[in-house]
């Protein structure tokens, strides 16, 4: 019996470790545009970008005409399973063997930080679209990284300042216990304190926790009036649900530091109504965003998240830079990218700064109540538009060594 138990546990561990699978990559010539996408395709963040991102990239390639520099564009995609080593080794493999010329990085800051190191080593442009961590353009910046749709700084500048202005002065943080959560809490703390609020406490919750009620009771006991949710995906959804169930939303205002439209869709407006959040894009902002949203919806049956829209825009931005440079040579393409003005369905006069931040408007939104929502996916009302410089902070604040001071 004893031997059996131990054997079981050991073999369970081996099985779990062995459950690694890869999608295959194709061989390609080096003078051809090869776009790669490494993202969480099968776990908690799969609805944020995932297969929907693949669809967005395909739309962008099609809209560009399907070929660049006279040759068809190749597109590869792989699942990083939220493991940094898998993301980095796939990136390296594609760069070495498949002639990769540009990589789109999906969700998970931890994986993107590992992939940024490969970008510097292999000199293949890396568009971090799904990762939030601002360190990608600060201490971990590279000459080949572009941080595209949002970051922890812009999220904090949006939601935290809006909450404090609306009277939420005393904050308690419920933080995901890894790089993303801690960077988000740090950024939000700065904003809260700068705007005249205080932080009364925080609790670090391990990733993958299923029951948030204990942590929310601690928040309630803190005497704060805002509970800042520095988490994402399933963690965010479950913590907001518990906050409602335990009546915490009645005494404290929940603030979503990162929420995607897919999360709001999953929660339903009854649970999410009144919530403040910050987003880099929303389908119902203007005619261009609506047109893209509707096209995407026709293909997938869902409205795109800001990161799926970001995938589309990033792919086109890159392809336009290749066209302008007349080559896939990384340094020449990066030079074009830093010169470009990005005007499309995603950004208005967006530009890529020396430290890699794609500076563009961010939007503080409030989730509508079921009565206010007129149509399916009609979820947000615009509270405030943050100009790019205000959202992402001045370049002088960047600690990226590439920024000349």
């Amino acid at each position, binding site marked *: *019996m*004893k031997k*059996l*138990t*131990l*054997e*079981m*546990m050991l*073999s*369970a561990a081996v*099985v779990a470790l062995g*459950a690694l699978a890869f999608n295959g990559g194709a061989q390609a010539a080096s003078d051809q545009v090869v776009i790669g996408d490494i993202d969480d395709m*099968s*776990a*908690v*963040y*799969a*609805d944020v970008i*995932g297969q929907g991102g693949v669809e967005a990239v395909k739309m962008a390639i099609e809209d560009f005409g399907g070929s660049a520099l006279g040759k068809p564009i190749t597109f590869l995609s792989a699942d990083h399973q939220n493991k940094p080593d898998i993301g980095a080794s796939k990136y390296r493999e594609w760069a070495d063997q498949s002639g990769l010329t540009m990589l789109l990085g999906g969700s998970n800051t931890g994986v993107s930080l590992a992939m940024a190191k490969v970008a510097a080593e292999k000199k293949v442009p890396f568009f971090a679209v799904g990762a939030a961590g601002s360190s990608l353009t600060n201490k971990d910046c590279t000459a080949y990284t572009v941080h595209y749709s949002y970051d922890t700084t812009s999220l904090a500048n949006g939601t935290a300042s809006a909450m404090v202005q609306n009277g939420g002065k005393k904050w308690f943080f419920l933080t995901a*216990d890894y790089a993303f959560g801690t960077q988000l809490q740090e950024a939000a703390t700065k904003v809260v304190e700068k705007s005249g609020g205080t932080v009364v406490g925080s*609790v*670090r*919750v*391990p990733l*993958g*926790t*299923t*029951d948030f*009620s*204990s*942590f929310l*009771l*601690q928040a309630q*006991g803190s005497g704060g009036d805002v509970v800042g949710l520095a988490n994402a*995906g*399933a963690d965010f*959804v*479950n913590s907001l*649900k*518990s906050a409602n*169930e*335990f*009546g915490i939303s009645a005494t404290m205002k929940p603030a979503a530091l990162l929420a995607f439209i*897919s*999360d709001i*869709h*999953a*929660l*339903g407006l009854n*649970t999410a109504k009144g919530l403040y959040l910050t987003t880099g894009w929303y389908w119902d902002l203007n005619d261009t965003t609506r047109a893209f949203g509707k096209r995407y919806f026709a293909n997938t049956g869902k409205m795109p998240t800001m990161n799926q829209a970001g995938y589309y825009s990033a792919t086109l931005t890159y392809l336009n830079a290749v066209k302008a440079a007349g080559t896939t040579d990384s340094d020449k393409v990066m030079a074009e990218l830093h010169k470009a003005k990005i005007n499309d369905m995603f950004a208005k006069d967006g530009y890529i700064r020396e430290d890699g931040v794609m500076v563009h408007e961010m939007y503080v939104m409030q989730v509508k109540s079921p009565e206010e929502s007129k149509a399916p996916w009609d979820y947000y009302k615009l509270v405030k538009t943050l100009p790019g410089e205000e959202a992402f902070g001045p370049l002088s604040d960047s600690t990226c060594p590439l920024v000349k001071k």
Partner: protein
Amino acid sequence: MTTIFGYPLPVVLGQLVLGFVNGSFYALLSLGLAVIFGLLRVVNFAHGAFYMLGGFAAHLLLIWFGINYWGALILSPLIVGALGVVVERALLRHLYKLDPLYGLLLTFGLAMMIEGFMQQQFGSSGITYPVPAALTGFYKLGFMVLPIYRAWVILASLTVCFLAWVLIEKTKLGATLRAATENASLTQAFGINVPVMVTLTYGAGVALAALAGVLAAPITQVSPHMGTSLVVVVFAVVVIGGMGSIFGSIISGLMLGFVEGLTKVVYPEASTTVIFVIMAIVLLIRPTGLFGRD
């Protein structure tokens, strides 16, 4: 204010109540695992997937047939249990003569297939399942508010655990079951159809997982991943209680819920690890688990 080890009493009490809720889930799930392991010697790695299917069955019964929570509480375990019977008859049955490792590998693979399929169909964000109208609202306990639904979860799972224990330990059917566990061929010699019993036991264990899934549906999102992280914890609970020990798995399920609740106050970062630390210690001191027999 009264304090316990420097923590205010209301905070500690609140965490203990919540620990009790989580412990009820652990108890219900580990009970199913223990029953299956006891008779089949199969480490049922698909338990988390069946738990998830229980939640999804409740959701689909609601949106396809308009069957409410109370109906789902009965139908969903029956449907998922029937699926378990098919799995046992078609797949597991062929592995009993082999090393138990094969059963583990088969159920692990099965869990991945089921979860992958559900993700393909329903996405990863999950779906909200409404709290039944009769159980909305909360009790004010003074030191905390306890949602009525959570109180119901404690009541329901303790009742089911108690009934299962009575059935196995105090009835003739239970006695036959235990006899088959001890010596299958001898039991068969007495004219008892052991293979049918094995099939039904697996179905019942799976149905318990599905029942837990229905109970969990209004609390967490119904999502393809809801069972993944839980099943690992429940395995640790079963190992701590003693593999195959019905009573042990119920008691250790509740106890570990408490310990986890307290860890969330004292050192939250360790709350998902504390059960595994306890498991390691128990394995070192009592390798058969707290209530296990050699």
